[in-house]
């Protein structure tokens, strides 16, 4: 199935009916999540600042998830040299970078009232900066090499190497003692959060996930089309 989809034609045919559904789900979930976020009660400790959580945590999750998508696609692009995998890696970079930047910005906005500082250099925060840097390096490398095949290979190696940073981001809170919250949701003992806050968080998380999926698929489809256009232009020039 996965390998069947690696055929660009089949991929286009399969995803075509999916696109409106995914976009609609993303918009609907975002609206619902926003509503839930502002109807949820204030946290007894964090008061109204808890509402930053509903944009901070999903952004952080998706910053990580998009890198997983990028790294795994890079792996397939390297091993099977498939153009679709390369398109997928490329399409994940920009949304991933934006989500990571949002996690940094909203975290910083949350840090000032909670920790009394915009920024601290602890392991979690620094490793997220490094994650952002990997995104920047990936995009810069792609943009700077204009032989597309060569750019794809180099970027794929970098994307793969960058995967080592993910466990550092994820487990930094456990390995080093930091100011930042340890995982309260994705942990072995189950979530430790009241349902009143868990529901909007989960809905927003799902919404971000859907939005990323929609962006990702759209960009992959655009990339497939772009390459077709380039090939057709070349053929036209050849015949002329």
């Amino acid at each position, binding site marked *: 199935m996965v390998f069947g989809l690696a055929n660009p034609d089949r991929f286009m045919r399969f995803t075509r009916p999916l696109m409106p559904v995914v976009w609609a789900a993303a918009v609907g979930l975002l609206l619902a999540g926003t509503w839930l976020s502002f109807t949820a009660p204030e946290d007894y400790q964090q008061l109204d600042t808890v509402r930053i959580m509903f944009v901070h945590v999903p952004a952080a999750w998706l910053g990580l998830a998009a890198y997983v998508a990028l790294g795994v696609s890079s792996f397939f692009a390297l091993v099977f040299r498939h153009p679709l995998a390369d398109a997928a890696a490329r399409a994940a970079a920009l949304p991933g970078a934006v989500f990571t930047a949002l996690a940094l910005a909203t975290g910083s906005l949350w840090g000032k009232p909670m920790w009394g500082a*915009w*920024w*601290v*250099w602890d392991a979690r925060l*620094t490793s997220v900066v490094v994650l952002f840097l990997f995104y*920047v390096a990936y995009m810069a490398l792609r*943009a*700077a090499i204009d032989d597309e095949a060569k750019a794809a290979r180099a970027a794929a190696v970098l994307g793969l190497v960058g995967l080592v940073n993910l466990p550092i981001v994820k487990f930094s809170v456990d390995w080093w003692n930091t100011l930042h919250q340890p995982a309260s949701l994705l942990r072995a003992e189950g979530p430790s959060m009241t349902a009143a806050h868990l529901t909007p968080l989960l809905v927003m998380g799902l919404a971000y996930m859907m939005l990323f999926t929609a962006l990702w698929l759209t960009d992959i489809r655009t990339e497939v089309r772009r390459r077709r256009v380039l090939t057709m232009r070349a053929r036209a020039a050849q015949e002329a």
Partner: protein
Amino acid sequence: MSAGRVLLKRELSLAWGGGGGPLLACGFFLALTAIVPLAAGGDPRVLQPVAGGIAWIALALASLLSLERLFERDFEDGALDLLALGPLPLEAVFAVKALAQWLAIGLPLAVAAPVAAIALGADPGWAPLILGSALLGSLGFAFTGALGAALALGSKRGGLLIAVVVLPLFIPPVIFGAGALEQALTGLSPWPALALLGATPCSPWR
């Protein structure tokens, strides 16, 4: 001076090439400011006093990194012959190249410097002062750096030689720039130091 404009346009397009110039400069800056706390430990009491200085060093090093190729490439690929057969004397060519280098790399770096300093713990109130001194400082770096790059031309060792030639030249801007910050910090007027800093871009023509 229309020849100067023509050259400036070309140099800018070479420096910004592919739209990545300023982005890369800022990415570099970001990476460097992320490395510092890792190397020196994240303790704010340790970082705060050196924050301004470190932003300055990062500025100097980023300028340095981008300077290396400034003349070396033109020399190796024969473009310098072409430039030498043009209407401007070589000194003017060097100055225009340095200016373009500053516009494409130094300017965005100077804008990023206050952000980096604040991230390392400097007081946000100093942002305008840091910006101003970084602007002047990067201009100084660009011109002294171009001087060093021109001197190291045709040598075999490239980058490091430029570094060694240029770093001593960088010291005055660093002293005056960081000095302005420190004087402001201790309540003194930063203007004399800033004035001296503003004078360094002219030093190659002393």
